[in-house]
């Protein structure tokens, strides 16, 4: 029971990282990333391949995942930075599909649909419960670290520029900000966080395969972020843990609802998630922890941010 609980908390931490990724690109900057799961997958594969086949120590393979995620973020935004935001939605959605296609078909590179089993773990597995607890400690520490970083960034001049871009790109660029550069940075940092989450998850479960990276994960995270509060780092955090609580409590739905098959139970679960997202968008678009109005900073000296 305890190890189940610890396992769930680790997964919740992974989702918290994904939610933080969305907070920086969507919450702060207004750039939608509907291909979140693609970056999650890329990070998982990069770190798993580097550590298993390349023999690279895990701290470095995690770093590699972050770099690869950042680069993928840059590549994906490159073509749409100057366009309306709907184009980014289409491109990111397509990107996640292509990642899954490549992962399933380039067997020499990714093991195809069989995936990569036996991904090295961060801590020795024979610690049993200790293994789960240690991973939980590590993941939670990373979540806390990213949270501090995000809270700091969101209050910094850089974060203010992102908000300005979200509210009105034209005004931001008239104010002398290089909109395209800021957008590329924000999106790619978000992508890098998602890749880190994927890498951690891969090492934790020791298994990486295309079927894990379903588009549904992106929906889960958007639900978490909108329910928690778009544009506020605390909201993403709370939303992610709430989401996992909900997902786990609906896990046994097929056993509770009479007369449905396991397949229908799984379908019902996804329907519930979809309906919740529609409801949250409608009823509480600002989330449980709405973004705070930003006070004008009391600075006497001039601080340039571009």
């Amino acid at each position, binding site marked *: 029971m305890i190890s189940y609980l610890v396992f769930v908390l680790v997964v919740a931490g992974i989702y918290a990282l994904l939610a933080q990724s969305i907070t920086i690109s969507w919450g702060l900057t*207004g750039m*939608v990333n*509907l291909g979140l799961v693609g970056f999650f997958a890329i990070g998982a594969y990069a770190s798993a391949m580097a550590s298993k086949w390349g023999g690279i120590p895990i701290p470095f393979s995690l770093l590699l995942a972050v770099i690869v995620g950042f680069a993928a973020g840059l590549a994906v935004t*490159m*073509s*749409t930075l*100057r*366009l*309306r*935001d*709907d*184009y980014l*939605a*289409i*491109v990111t*959605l*397509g*990107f996640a*599909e*292509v990642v899954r*296609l*490549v992962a*399933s*078909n380039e067997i020499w590179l990714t093991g195809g649909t069989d995936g990569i089993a036996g991904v090295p773990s961060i801590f020795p597995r024979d610690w049993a419960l200790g293994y789960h607890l240690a991973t939980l400690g590590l993941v939670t520490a990373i979540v806390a670290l990213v949270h501090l970083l995000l809270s700091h960034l969101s209050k910094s001049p850089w974060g203010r520029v992102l908000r300005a871009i979200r509210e009105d790109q034209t005004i931001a660029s008239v104010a002398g900000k290089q909109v395209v550069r800021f957008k590329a940075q924000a999106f790619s940092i978000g992508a890098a966080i998602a890749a880190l989450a994927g890498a951690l998850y891969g090492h934790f479960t020791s298994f990486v395969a295309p079927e894990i990276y379903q588009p*549904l994960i992106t*929906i889960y995270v*958007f639900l978490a972020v909108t329910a928690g509060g778009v544009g506020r780092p605390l909201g993403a955090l709370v939303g992610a843990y709430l989401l996992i609580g909900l997902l786990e409590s609906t896990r046994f739905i097929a056993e509770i609802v009479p007369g*449905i098959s396991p*397949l*229908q139970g799984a*379908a*019902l679960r*996804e*329907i519930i*998630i*979809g*309906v919740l*997202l*529609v409801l949250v*968008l*409608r009823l509480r*678009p600002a989330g449980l922890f709405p973004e705070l109005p930003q006070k004008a900073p009391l600075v006497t000296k001039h601080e340039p941010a571009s």
Partner: protein
Amino acid sequence: MLNSIAQAALNGVVSGTILAIPAIGFTAIFAVLRYPNFAIGAIATVGAYAGWFANTQLGLPLTLSLFATFIVAGSVAVLCEEIAIRPLEKSGALMMAICSLAVGIIIENLVRGAFGNDPRGYAVALARDMRFGGLRVSPQQIENLLIAVAIMAILWSLLKFTRLGRAMRASADNPDLARLKGVNPALVAGVAVAVSGGLAGAGGLLIALDTSADPLTGSRLILSIFAAAVLGGLGSIPGAVVGALTVGIFEELTVLLLSPNYRTAIGFVFILVVLTFQPTGLFGARNAK
């Protein structure tokens, strides 16, 4: 070699013409309501099942099944729009897009819950391929092609010659001016969604005729639909047709070089290239910025 290229191009023309039907639906919603509706794939799936149900369970002939499918898929699209998506109009296009993604998941799983994951085939007679020179084409392909062309012809004449069609084109061009001229925006939006949903459903039926209906029939199309619409210029109906033909032909040609699994990835390459060099697409006059 030359023969296999010609054969691939021929197959591409057929699949591209069918792809044009849901692509028109996607681009038309964008033209009138100005958001990308990601539920279009799931609505195509609804069409695939509605057609299968009418064809095999009710025993209707193909044309009647197609008609029924159009009505069912159109109604589902209108319901989704009215219940879930349109209330978010004030929150902006991206919120509507995200909402449509959630709606797509709901529909797909409703279908899965009702019919399961097993593929469902239509009751159509298998016929021998016809040969023209070295090229093979099945009677089913020809029939699908003709149906798709007929649907486009009907749509074109409705848009061109009816009052409502003119109102729709006017709204897409300049919604404020259209409203000033007495066009009812709610009516135009409703009709656009109904017709687009019907088209997506009809597209799903035509695809399922060739293969079979399963809960992912529509989602598998989604990349190709995006690519067709973006290539033609988001919001342009003739653009979606040309885009779909191009994407269809290139998808088939890719199969000659790469694994058939990469068929749909070519769509993504198209999207990136078009957005980088010519974001308004081939026919898009609309400002993409």
